[in-house]
């Protein structure tokens, strides 16, 4: 079943003696299989360099939780900026589409409203009322976001999707936009107790000059309990976009890119509320790995007929 993975590792990491042992350990459980497939896809499509993977593997303690150890190795790597995409080729924004960033309201409040708001329930409700009175479906009539003076994250990596594609996905389910976005983008946020996330979408201006790039395995959080990141070869009609697996595996997954932080936003950026989310259930590794192997086959042999 994992012969294609072994083949890619043998071909690309032949100068890294620990790689085979590492791979054998990884393939013994689902999370490791998942990571190995992603590495194989990105190595075979040359999205990541064998030298970086070799270095990370060499510094990874081979333990029961290889993905978590791999995640630690990434964070401690001497060339972290490179792993975080410092040298990954940048892509211009689509000319007729816009990016959209989907995040939890409390993340926005925490990152963008300074010290004026806590993330307790009343503050979040007030922030939604004042800053996001519009639904995502009515996003264009929302107010601009020029009050945001820092558009970044703790890792300075921001994930964005295609506005056109996301809109199409959610417009069919106007009462369930939050859950659909959460599932389609593989975000896997859950409701727990008093933590009831509300998703918002921030639309960028069309053809915004931000240079984004295709996400790599290094940007995914391999220490998370549930991770839906799944590498893919470039789809001929989506060059330079990644495509994280949807949480349920049944919802159409959406294309995505990442970019580094911006010093602030303008009034051309508008936001709207997608809504609360339903839990996405347990991660179906069987389905995820099957899809990963399918993508690996495409990565090594090309798209059938040149199109997806």
């Amino acid at each position: 079943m994992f012969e294609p993975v072994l083949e890619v590792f043998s071909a690309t990491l032949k100068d890294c003696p620990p790689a085979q042992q590492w791979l054998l350990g990884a393939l013994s459980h689902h999370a490791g299989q998942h990571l190995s497939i992603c590495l194989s896809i990105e190595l075979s499509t040359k999205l990541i360099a064998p030298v970086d993977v070799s270095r990370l593997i060499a510094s990874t303690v081979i333990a029961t939780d290889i993905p978590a150890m791999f995640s630690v190795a990434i964070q401690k790597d001497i060339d972290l900026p490179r792993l975080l995409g410092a040298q990954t080729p940048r892509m211009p924004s689509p000319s007729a589409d816009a990016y959209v960033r989907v995040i939890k309201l409390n993340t926005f409040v925490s990152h963008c409203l300074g010290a004026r708001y806590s993330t307790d329930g009343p503050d979040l409700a007030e922030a939604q009322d004042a800053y996001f009175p519009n639904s995502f479906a009515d996003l264009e009539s929302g107010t601009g976001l020029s009050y945001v003076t820092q558009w970044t994250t703790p890792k300075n990596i921001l994930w964005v999707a295609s506005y056109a594609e996301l809109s199409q996905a959610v417009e069919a389910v106007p009462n369930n936009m939050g859950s659909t976005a959460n599932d389609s983008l593989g975000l896997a946020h859950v409701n727990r107790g008093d933590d009831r996330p509300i998703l918002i979408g921030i639309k960028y201006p069309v053809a915004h000059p931000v240079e984004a790039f295709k996400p790599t395995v290094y940007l995914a959080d391999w220490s998370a309990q549930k991770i839906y990141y799944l590498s893919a070869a470039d789809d001929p009609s989506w060059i330079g976009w990644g495509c994280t697996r949807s949480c349920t595996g049944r919802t159409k997954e959406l294309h995505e890119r990442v970019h580094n932080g911006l010093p602030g936003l303008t009034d051309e950026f508008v936001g709207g509320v997608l809504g609360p989310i339903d839990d996405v259930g347990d991660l179906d590794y069987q389905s995820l790995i099957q899809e990963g192997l399918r993508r690996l086959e495409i990565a090594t042999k090309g798209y059938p007929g040149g199109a997806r």
Partner: protein
Amino acid sequence: MAHAKNFLTEFDVFDATQWESWLDAALSGNCRVISPERDEALQDYIIRVFKGVPLRQKDIFSQVLSAVITQCPHLESYAERWYILLKIAQVVRPPVQSLLRTMLATGFGNTTVQEMGRETKLQSNLLLVVAKYGVDDWLVEYIWKTSEKNYDDFEYGLLCMRILSWRLDSSCLAYHRNLIPLFKNSLHVAQYQPEFYLVIKRLGCRLVMNWFQTFITKIELFESHSFELWIQGFQVAHLRYKDDPYALSVLAELKARDGRFDINTLSELARVRSEREPDLIPNFMLRIKDTVSWEYDDAMALIAPQFAFPHLHLFRSKSFSAPLEMGSPELELLDRANFLGGHREVGRSPFIQQPTSTVH
């Protein structure tokens, strides 16, 4: 649901020692049991865990957090830890109110910390967490004192306004004496208007209008660029209350102030005339009569009977140089706004001109 169940099960058996150990590890970036989500800052991760556990566990967590806060040294080298602890305390509200007040009073808020690559002070977060326990006279006094002396940054001013508004009195409005001079650019307008929208929502448009009508008479104090910027934000915030007669009255007054009071404004006012306060609009018109350009005498006179306006003579004494013609857009507008009542017919109102005679 299974994942949520697992999550709760794991933390549900935590005792105080386990919480202490978990929190200590998490504060050092060693996140156990569950890991941070994409984009999630450390404090948000810890808060997420707190929110997700049952009430009994929340109580234990709160006690553990109190101990951690009490034991954390008041040293600059602990600034980053304090930043995270204060953020968590804003949500958890552990029983350490007097300690936090002491920190505020002794100036620990001046300690600087890096927040996502930017240098900031602990002051705002410290003030917010203290305010979460209640805004009493001591805190109001503290806010005025620090605003005047030490903290002249705009965002701090906005935070002070927000906190004062939790008292549900006019103290946050009076605070504008400090806030307005801090307006420097359009960013401040954009930051102010959603915050003031919430102030209006909390206090009600009537209280804000009453304050504004007194305040506007003292504008000589603020005849400045800052004042003009503030007015922009103040106006935009009111635009979200277009169905409230008091908000409309404020908006109309602002228009009168800069010579933009027109028939549309009048129409808007009529649409929302207040049943609670029938004299609101007549009184408003009386107040602005020297401010507006009286090209719309006709309209003024037309609306007077509708409101049983007691000052009609003020307008009747003026010359009606341009009576409204039947079918004119202005008249239609007034009609739609139900200004005219029974006065729409030609001849019943002296202000409506006879249509131009036609040949039969």
